[in-house]
């Protein structure tokens, strides 16, 4: 059934200044009424219709829905306010009924804006500062709670959630091995490749061994690993805990006497503290292997020569320093990821926000801590 569809329009018929007929035509539905909005608006704004009687004639309306009704009701109200007498003519029984229903339920747009929208810039800045300070305070409280329960766990090792720890070692550690080894391999390769050019100029080819090994063991492997894990696991922890907060799982745990810090945070944290040194060691090996390949191809240093030289010239302390940093990074990544998860509130939007914040924070703190380590260790001469 093909029905003619006509855009809504308005015909104004002024028999005398006192009596005006508005003939409504066409489809007054949400799809077609848009064209009549301005016509109606212009009519209602006219200043010469102060005390006229206005008749809305429905006889040529093909169809009308709530969008059309709202438009008409709005105009009727505006005209009545101006002092016009308004009547409706030729409406079907159904249109009449809908009109009454929509007049009863009509509500003008005005929405009370929330308090605080119109505050000045100074209070805006003030509010941000307060929020920021409160954030720091919350984090300190979280760290306090965490230390408390960690201490309790050390006192009573039986309460440790071993299964959960193993699960998180697998999820955050073992499954990260492919991506960590790929990145680490490429970094080792690139460092050696760029270094090879320069060393060749001095004829100091063999120093490629110290250059690659020390930089990878001491700085690159721990940093690359921590950054990859921060991106993978901090986000996962925030999203997991955030979702649990929204679905009230965290509250449910509290009511059952399961302390969320013990059940959710400590296993994740210990898992990262255990797995990060292991992954870093793996990354050390893969990164140096990348360097060995370049040394072999570009500088004619065979694998055995490389390893002999490394054994003779590279002290063990460089590997140890890298491995000592790793659990610290793991602890920070897990703490930030979980803390941001607990901050999630209310809506699903907030999960996205806090996940972003958590990854950015975690990566920043990994880099900042690494710088701190570097300065302190160099100052004390290690």
């Amino acid at each position, binding site marked *: 059934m093909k029905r003619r569809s006509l855009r809504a329009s308005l015909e104004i018929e002024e028999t005398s200044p006192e009596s005006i007929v508005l003939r409504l035509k066409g489809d007054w539905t*949400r*799809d077609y*009424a*848009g064209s009549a*909005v301005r016509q109606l608006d212009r009519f209602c704004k006219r200043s010469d219709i102060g005390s006229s009687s206005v008749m809305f004639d429905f006889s040529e309306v093909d169809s009308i*829905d*709530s*969008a059309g009704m*709202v*438009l008409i*009701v*709005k105009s009727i109200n505006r005209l009545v306010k101006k002092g016009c007498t308004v009547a409706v003519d030729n409406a079907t029984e*159904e249109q009449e*009924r*809908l009109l009454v*229903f*929509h007049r009863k*339920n*009509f*509500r*003008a*747009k*005005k*929405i*009370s*804006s*929330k308090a605080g929208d119109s505050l000045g810039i100074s209070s805006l800045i003030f509010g941000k500062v307060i929020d920021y300070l409160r954030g720091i305070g919350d984090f300190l409280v979280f760290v306090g709670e965490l230390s408390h329960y960690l201490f309790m766990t050390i006192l009573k090792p039986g309460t440790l959630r071993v299964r959960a720890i193993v699960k998180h070692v697998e999820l955050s550690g073992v499954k990260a091995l492919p991506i960590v080894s790929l990145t680490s391999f490429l970094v080792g390769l690139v460092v050696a490749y760029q270094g090879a050019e320069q060393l060749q100029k001095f004829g100091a080819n063999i120093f490629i061994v110290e250059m690659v090994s020390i930089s990878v063991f001491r700085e690159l492997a721990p940093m690359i690993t921590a950054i990859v894990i921060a991106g993978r696991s901090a986000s996962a922890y925030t999203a997991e805990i955030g979702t649990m907060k929204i679905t009230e799982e965290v509250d449910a745990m509290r009511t059952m006497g399961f302390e969320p810090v013990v059940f959710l945070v400590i296993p994740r944290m210990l898992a990262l503290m255990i797995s990060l040194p292991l992954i870093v060691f793996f990354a050390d090996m893969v990164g140096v292997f990348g360097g060995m390949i370049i040394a072999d191809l570009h500088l004619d240093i065979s694998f055995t020569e490389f390893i002999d030289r490394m054994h003779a010239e590279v002290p063990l302390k460089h590997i140890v320093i890298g491995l000592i940093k790793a659990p610290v990074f793991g602890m920070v990544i897990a703490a930030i990821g979980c803390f941001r998860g607990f901050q999630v*509130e*209310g*809506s*699903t*939007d907030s999960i996205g926000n806090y996940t972003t914040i958590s990854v950015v924070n975690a990566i920043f703190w990994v880099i900042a801590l690494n710088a701190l380590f570097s300065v302190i260790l160099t100052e004390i001469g290690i």
Partner: protein
Amino acid sequence: MREKVIVVEDVVTRFGKNVVHDGVSFSIGRGEIYGLLGGSGSGKSTLLREMIMLQRFDKGEIYVLGKRLRGISSADAESLRRRWGVLFQFGALFSSLSVLENVGVTLREYTDLPRSVIDEIAQTKLKMVGLPPKAAALYPSELSGGMKKRVGLARALAMDPELLFLDEPTSGLDPASAEAFDRLIVELRNMLGLTVVMVTHDLDTIKHALDRFIILHNKKVLIEGTYEEAVGYEHYAIRDFFKIEG
């Protein structure tokens, strides 16, 4: 005989080996308030999801507003979706949008009405479902469960649907709010000529709002009819369902 808005014929649904529906048939006439009842796990929500094309069924046919859902073209599906409104059990409001934006979202997407008119239509729908003006500026996370349902209903009504699907509209509401909600549904049906299909457990809703219903039991339709007809029917499942003593 009234025009049939929804016809369900011999629907079979399986989840793996688990058979949920085994030959379910019934039909819903225009202007009816129709209930899908049954115990937990009887597949009534699944049936509702099948009618609104969120869930596939294995055998049988479902016709909605004259369209056959099996193998429906995407254009037909699109136009069907604009002719019905759905209220989900917990409202399913978009959490990034305010209440007013939630109600107006389909109008904004599908029509070229000016923003101010859309806001007024949305406000009018909000008043229809009995929400105060100040609720319009709130976000879903700031609403109570009952308010979420009302906003969900206003959103479902935004496009003037012919068909309204409600999933447990009164669950989680206090008795007074539940009763008001039932009255609202009946009033909207009378005023706007809607056909309403709802999944419900609420005895008061069943008695006071539903015209007819089916009770699903043991993968089949146990009975189709009115409350009076169902009460007169001797079956343990029905007695259990209506909590009839003896």
